[in-house]
């Protein structure tokens, strides 16, 4: 075949021409074919991940604007900008430039506030997103690695927030750094040196802002971006999970095609998130750095708060008693070469709670898999009530976190409710220990009760809100049967029974296996089984005498909601 006779495809429409141009150069057709109509399930609880993504984009944009004006230098200067109360005050160039952004650059204050609000929302959205994934069991095979990527993102988000918070170099950020310095120094053996290396000598030195700056605007965002790319790539590879419901199976995805509906909704949502952040930035002052003054190790400030996501560590520091009677958690350990000090009063609260939270978080997919022996792929989500033990564990974790978080405001709680600060601390210490257990027990009960209610609805229909008189003259509320579509959602979950300890190859039961079986019993012993075929058939025979009009399968019936 001679090339001269080959007639190449000629596009006739403008769209066709552009598409053809791109396609013959970058080979886009297969991509469009793959993604153009890809199906995404839709549910309100799937939006938190989107919020996190969009606030990150907003952070990149507003942050880049800030870098054009911000000068991360700790060199000494005299402020001569427009904010009169600080005129002539000695401060660092970093602080002066943050003030200039606020008062001498039009829109600078707005951008600072947008940046800070977006940062708060970013971490919040990631946290809620993560809870959604946890409570619905979306972390199970094949998505364990993506869960780990997600946990890493959360930690990177905290790092981004902390490094950013320190940049303006005013009173609050300096004080935050001083606390970090104290915590770092508590690390045995290397802590003191880490502190010197961090600050370029003794605290505060003149290096730290520049060092945090490069972490904040380059290293951490780049890592976050990398992780987000991996995260989204894996979402595409796995396809999104979906809630149980009619038409949904482990083998399919039910939802809307990317083009046009899903893309339009998601794209539109970006603008909505941006709009909300703009409102916050326009109307609500955040981090009013001009009120704090330059960093000075001497003045006092009570009632100041770190950004919310750092609060739990600060709260843990507050909850720890430094001494018990005459016993001090500062241990002086005599060694042959001299005495060394182990500052357990700082080390324990700074590392242990956060360490446990993150270790359990990262490891949970494997912990649960070990306990349940469930290594199957899951694409249908659990309704949280149908996994009562997991849901209980999650709530216990939330409560533990929230107690520490509340402790970071113990002084505000005390002044607000006019109670003694010491009492607030004692109560919070008690809650720190017992709260998670109470939370676990209550949550598990609530889940089981909800499951029972589901059974009730499946077997006897739902109350229609209509009182009727039976032929015998008795009044009762009319019950309506659910149609199959709604029924299916309530019955389609597995009845997981405890798996007793299994002997290994040698026929013996290992100690670890016994332990596993114990956990497994704890996981599944108390459970509410889904309604079975027989039970349903049995209930239906009752109907004819009981429920005046079975409206099964009929459309236009009141919805049962999520």
């Amino acid at each position, binding site marked *: 075949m001679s090339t001269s006779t080959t007639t190449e495809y000629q596009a006739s429409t403008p769209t066709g021409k552009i598409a053809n141009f791109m396609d013959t150069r970058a080979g886009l057709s297969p991509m469009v074919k793959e993604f153009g109509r890809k199906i995404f399930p839709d549910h309100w609880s799937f939006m938190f991940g989107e919020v996190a993504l969009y606030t990150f984009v907003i952070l990149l944009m507003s942050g880049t604007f800030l870098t054009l004006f911000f000068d991360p230098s*700790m060199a000494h200067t005299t402020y001569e900008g*427009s904010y009169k109360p600080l005129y002539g005050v000695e401060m660092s160039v970093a602080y002066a430039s943050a003030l200039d952004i606020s*008062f001498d650059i039009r829109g600078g*204050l707005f951008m600072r506030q947008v940046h800070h609000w977006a940062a708060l929302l970013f971490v919040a959205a990631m946290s809620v997103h993560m809870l959604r994934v946890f409570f619905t069991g979306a972390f199970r095979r094949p998505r364990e690695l993506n869960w780990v990527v997600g946990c890493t993102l959360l930690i990177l988000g905290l790092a981004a927030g902390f490094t950013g918070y320190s940049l303006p170099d005013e009173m609050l950020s300096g004080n935050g750094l001083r*606390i970090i*310095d*104290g915590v770092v*120094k*508590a690390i045995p*053996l290397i*802590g*003191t*040196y880490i502190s*010197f*290396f961090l600050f*370029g000598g*003794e*605290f505060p*030195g003149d290096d730290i802002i520049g060092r945090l700056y490069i972490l904040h605007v380059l290293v951490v965002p780049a890592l976050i971006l990398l992780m987000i790319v991996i995260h989204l790539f894996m979402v595409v590879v796995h396809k999104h999970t979906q809630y149980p419901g*009619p*038409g949904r*199976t*482990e083998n*399919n*995805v*039910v*939802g*809307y095609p990317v083009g*046009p*509906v899903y893309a*339009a909704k998601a794209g*539109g949502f970006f603008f*909505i998130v*941006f*709009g909300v952040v*703009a*409102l*916050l930035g*326009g*109307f609500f002052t955040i981090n009013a750095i001009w009120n704090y003054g330059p960093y000075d190790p*001497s*003045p006092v400030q009570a*009632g100041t708060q770190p950004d919310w996501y750092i609060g739990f560590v*600060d709260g843990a*520091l*507050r*909850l720890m008693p*430094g*001494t018990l009677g005459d016993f*001090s958690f500062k241990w002086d350990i005599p060694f042959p070469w001299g*005495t060394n000090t182990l500052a357990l009063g*700082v080390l324990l609260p700074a590392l242990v709670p956060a360490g446990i939270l993150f270790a359990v978080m990262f490891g949970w997919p494997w912990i649960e898999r070990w306990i349940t022996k469930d290594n*199957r792929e*899951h694409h249908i989500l659990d309704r949280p009530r149908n996994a009562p033990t997991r849901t209980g564990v999650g709530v216990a974790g939330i409560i533990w976190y929230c107690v520490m978080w509340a402790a970071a405001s113990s002084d505000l709680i005390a002044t607000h409710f006019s109670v003694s600060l010491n009492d607030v*601390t004692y109560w919070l210490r008690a809650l720190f220990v017992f709260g998670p257990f109470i939370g676990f027990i209550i949550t598990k009960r609530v889940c089981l009760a909800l499951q029972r209610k589901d059974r009730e609805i499946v077997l006897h229909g739902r109350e229609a809100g209509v009182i009727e008189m039976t032929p015998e003259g008795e009044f009762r509320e009319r019950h309506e049967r659910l149609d*199959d579509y709604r029924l299916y959602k309530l*019955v*389609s979950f597995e009845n997981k029974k405890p798996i007793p300890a299994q002997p290994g190859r040698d026929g013996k039961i290992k100690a670890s296996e016994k332990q596993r079986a114990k956990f497994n019993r704890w996981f599944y012993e108390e459970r509410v089984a*889904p309604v079975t075929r027989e039970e349903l058939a049995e209930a239906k025979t009752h109907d004819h005498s009981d429920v005046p009009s079975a409206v099964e399968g009929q*459309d236009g019936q009141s919805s049962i909601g999520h």
Partner: protein
Amino acid sequence: MSEQSHGGPDHTGAVEHAGVEESGKYAIDNPGLPPHRPRLADEDPKAAKRAERQAAFLFGLSIVGTLLFFVGYFVVGQIGPDTTFATIRLQNMLLGLGTAFAMLGIGVGIVHWAKTLMPDHETTELRHEVRTEADRQVAVGMIEDIIDETQVKRRPLLRNTLIGAGVLAVLPAIAIFRDLDDTDNRSEFAAENFGPERLRHTMWATDVRLVRDPTGTPIKASDVTIGSAFHVIPEGLNELDPHEMLNQKAKAVVLLMRLNPEDMQVSPEREDWNVDGIVAYSKVCTHVGCPVALYEQHTHHLLCPCHQSTFDLTQECKVIFGPAGHALPQLPIRVNEEGFLVARSDFHEPVGPAYWERG
């Protein structure tokens, strides 16, 4: 559930799936997707037109928002030394409101468009397995071949020297960070300036006068009445170069108070550290270093605002509540010939948070 029971073009059965549909598994079989219910705009061209107008109105609102932004930026105008705080607030609000309208208009408009006019049929797509068994075999085979071709297994000498070289090659990447703390390179007293020893010393020394923070005025013993508290720095601090100043201040800040001598327990070795009940304590919290400076006169307690460590002045600043692990260090003081308060010496222990080498 047998391993192969649900093999098919998309599912080889190599990976076990949870709850794959088997008739009879649940109380009722999967009824399939519910029938699609048409929306108003699907059937009524008037409703569709209305939805179109609503979305267009929202886009119009976005245009108004952008204009509002420009009003905020250009009409409220340049800010500078004469701008009042109220103007800055107004400008910030207009920028926020303008951007919010601009963004929400587009966002809500598009979502409205998608919800009312774009097709809302739920559709189904099959999942594919993350890997197929055939692919796995090919991939594993390839990797084995690759390793084989390198001969690394047959030639341990190559492997071991490479591992050794690799491990060693990483060390410079760690060592090169040594000068993150370069204080010793910059000063004549190299040895003293590296390592934890420097945390033991502050600017306080024999006969250094106690002066007020920040004014630098010296303090006479007679100025310090019972119940008063002074924020104190060592004389000469303010004259230091600004950076050295902050570093020194971070260690040297002191709180000066006068108690009734009868209220105080004084240990034998500290008998001459106070002047008729005037005592000086480090203001750096021994927990993690915030300034401890809330002085409650009636109870003689010092409270740290950061995590509420409470120190009892009458017991040589022992910790009586909160997370701090040891007492605030005391600065020994006396009165000089002119009647000013001066330090007898530096602190006898390091100030601030505990650290490994503190001892």
